């Protein structure tokens, strides 16, 4: 919980600073996209900090590339001396 509070505090400072910069630039589209991305990043990291276990990227990438990466890895490992 403490980690999450610390993270929210840092994120809100960042949000305020960047929001202020974009407001001055009158970049409305940038402001909307920044808000969407920031909300997404904060939500997903908060879930991670609350112990929600996301799949490891290596497993996801391995799943996507399995037909190629699996035989390739086996072939490479056959030349690797341990």
């Amino acid at each position: 919980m403490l980690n999450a509070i610390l993270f929210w505090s840092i994120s809100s400072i960042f949000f305020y600073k960047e929001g202020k910069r974009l407001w001055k630039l009158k970049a409305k589209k940038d402001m909307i996209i920044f808000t969407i991305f920031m909300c997404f990043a904060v939500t997903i990291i908060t879930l991670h900090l609350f112990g929600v276990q996301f799949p490891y990227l290596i497993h996801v990438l391995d799943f996507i590339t399995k037909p190629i990466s699996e035989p390739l890895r086996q072939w490479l490992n056959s030349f690797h001396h341990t």
Partner: protein
Amino acid sequence: MEKIDGKQFTILVIMNTLGASIIFIPSIATGFGKENGWLTVLFSIAFGMLIVSMYSVIIKQQAERDIFCFIEDTFGKWFGVIIIILFNGYLFTNASANLWAIGDFMSLQILMGTPEQAIELIIIGTALIAIRHGIEVIGRTAEVFFPFTMLSTSLLTLLVMEEANWQNIQPVFQLNRLDTFVGTIPIIVITFLELFILLGITHKVNRPKSAQKGLLLGGFISGMLLLVITTACIVVLGLKATTHYTYPIYALGQRISLFNFLERVEILVAFIWFFTIFFKISITFYILSNGMSYLLKLKNHKTLSIPLALLLFLGSAILIPTTFNVFTFIYGPYLVFSVLFTIILPICILLINSVKSKQQKGS
């Protein structure tokens, strides 16, 4: 518009090539080539320079255009956008992997007991400051730290040479010939192929010719440095130790002892790696943030830098479960993605553009 000169670009190329590889290459090279590990690196330099030459031709075709704009011009609007999205995914994976690598190394070897995520947060925070200052500042900072990095690398290899046992690299190319060649694949993947990412900043180099020259020169110098370090690891630590240590170069630093005055300077390794990988993360992050801005047609790359920094931090936390999985990652999905985005994509770019230019000449 921000500009860097050819010298700064060359330094960034060297820093990028050494980045993740300096710490992993000796064990990968000896894992495949055994006593010919140094030859594996030598062959990698030869093949790598061919690939870098291909990138150099792309820089010429790019003609001061942003790589994302160039991809869109080459492949057309819709297909171009799909490729840019996928390429951004590759950049994200690369930056997260490098962030994880330095966090893992620091928490295991130097700041023992410190949570890996705390180190990663500090590093991505620093990279965030760097990219918000822009490429000019990153280039100048690299110029400042470059002599120190080179001095540390030279000291690391020279000071251990008195312990060298040259029998460790013999017999030369008599055994494991095929393994020696196969070992070049993962080495090229984590060194020279990643230089394609740097094409994202070549339009910021004040003269395109100096970017081409910088890429070739930087690639060659860093390759030579990797060759010297791998050879030093094999002759000083021996084959078994170089293969089995996760960070053989760190063990090399632990061997340094000079007149009871210069002792345990393995921290030099940490300095070298910290500086090189910091620039690698910053550059990849900078190009990723430019890529996302291009994709979403934003006014400035700074807009998405903060949320992307947070996502990269999360990416590094959920990338790999343990250090033992790192080679599964390099030999598997990362190799596939690297080949796809840094060999097949550039070849397609070259072919399409040469056909287009022929058609233009014909008409």
